[in-house]
């Protein structure tokens, strides 16, 4: 738990430092993109930190590709101990 808090704080600190640098140098496009990526990362950290009921990425991909990979997986497992 404490390690996560440390990572979130370091993400915020580096974000502030880099954001200030980019703003002072007039790189607004870089500032916006970097801030959005960092914000996405921090939000995901917080969701995981507070055990939000979100499915894992593997579950999401699994659900999306199930019709495609299930027949192949079934064929692969035929004849094996798991099959």
């Amino acid at each position, binding site marked *: 738990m404490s390690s996560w808090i440390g990572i979130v704080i370091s993400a915020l600190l580096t974000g502030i430092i880099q954001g200030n640098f980019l703003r002072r140098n007039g790189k607004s496009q870089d500032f916006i*993109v970097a*801030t959005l990526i960092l914000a996405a990362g921090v939000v995901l950290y917080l969701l995981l930190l507070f055990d939000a009921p979100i499915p894992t*990425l593997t579950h999401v991909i699994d659900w999306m590709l199930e019709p495609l990979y299930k027949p192949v997986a079934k064929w692969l497992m035929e004849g*094996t101990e*798991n099959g």
Partner: protein
Amino acid sequence: MDKAKITSAQFAILMYMYILGEAAIVQPHTIANIAGSDEWFTMILSIFVQLGFGWLYMKLSFKYPDETIIEYSQRILGKGAGWVLGFIYLLFFIILVAYILRVISGFLGSVILPRSPLDIIGLVFMIPVVYGVFLGLGVIGRATEILLPIAVFVFIVSSIMLVPKIDVDNLLPVFPDGIMPSIKGLYSIIGFPTMDVVVVLMLVRFIVDKKKTRKYFYITSAAAPFTLVIIALYTISVLGIEETIRAPYVVYDLAKEIRIERIFERVEALVGIIWISTTFVKITLSFYAVTIAAVQLFKLTSYKYAIIPFLFLTLPMSKWIVNNPAELEYYLGYVYPIFAFFPSFLFPVLLLVIGALKNKKQKSSGEEGRGQPEKTKSPSAE
């Protein structure tokens, strides 16, 4: 954009380490589940598949040698559709980085640093990766030239030390259930690592001496799976099929078998250097592809501004991606090959076909030269 350039030889070394990457850690175990003691034959078959994918990527890359796939997809498909395709590649590389990080954190966390939190292992592993990407592809290439001899030396020494432990009976009978299990085993290895080589489409642009690239890349494409053949032969003949199926990190367990009386033993962490260095190269190149894709998609002034934000995005993603090692193993074995099929095979083939059709159409309408890839360098090329 990174101004650094790499030579064809450095590119080949990078790709050798990249293909071996984590495949050597997870695949012998995954494929043994399907192919049994004939997994070495699966690895032999994978050499030809790897060469086939290598041919596809070289064909596409050399049609547009001064651009990455992010740039020429916009040229072939038009601005909108090309941008969307580029964004899909960006997501693919981010997910790839997260998976690699999850596997290596799991590996280190379960066998070397059992009481350390995975997040911290991941963060510590990512620090040299981030620094390498910050310094650029040239530095990554030169660092790999140093890492490869060390990894090869440790590999050869450990292979020699394992010779007395080899029991050829473990490899017999050959093909007890026919050749089909070996062919089935190919499915997992096509996904990881064969199709991961799509990162080539982001890197060829940075090579200086492109004349030698194809030759070196094909040698690498055969050499890396051949190394996996040797690893498969060792794991089965030393540990036996039961142990190979049971152990999630079978190459590590293999290294535990190195023992010369009581003088020389417990060298598995030392042998782990090989797999940590290959994984380092794999994750560095994937992370580099992420930052370059972001620069070209979002028109950033430097890829360096995207490094730290992406670090703090991939770290939680590596945690979010799977709940447990069993889920990861199932994903890599069965789901990932289909997931990687789109960006690694379907889209490159589509780009190649549409690009060729466009060229043909332009040639037939008498506008010579306009359909060809432009000889001038892309705006972002140095």
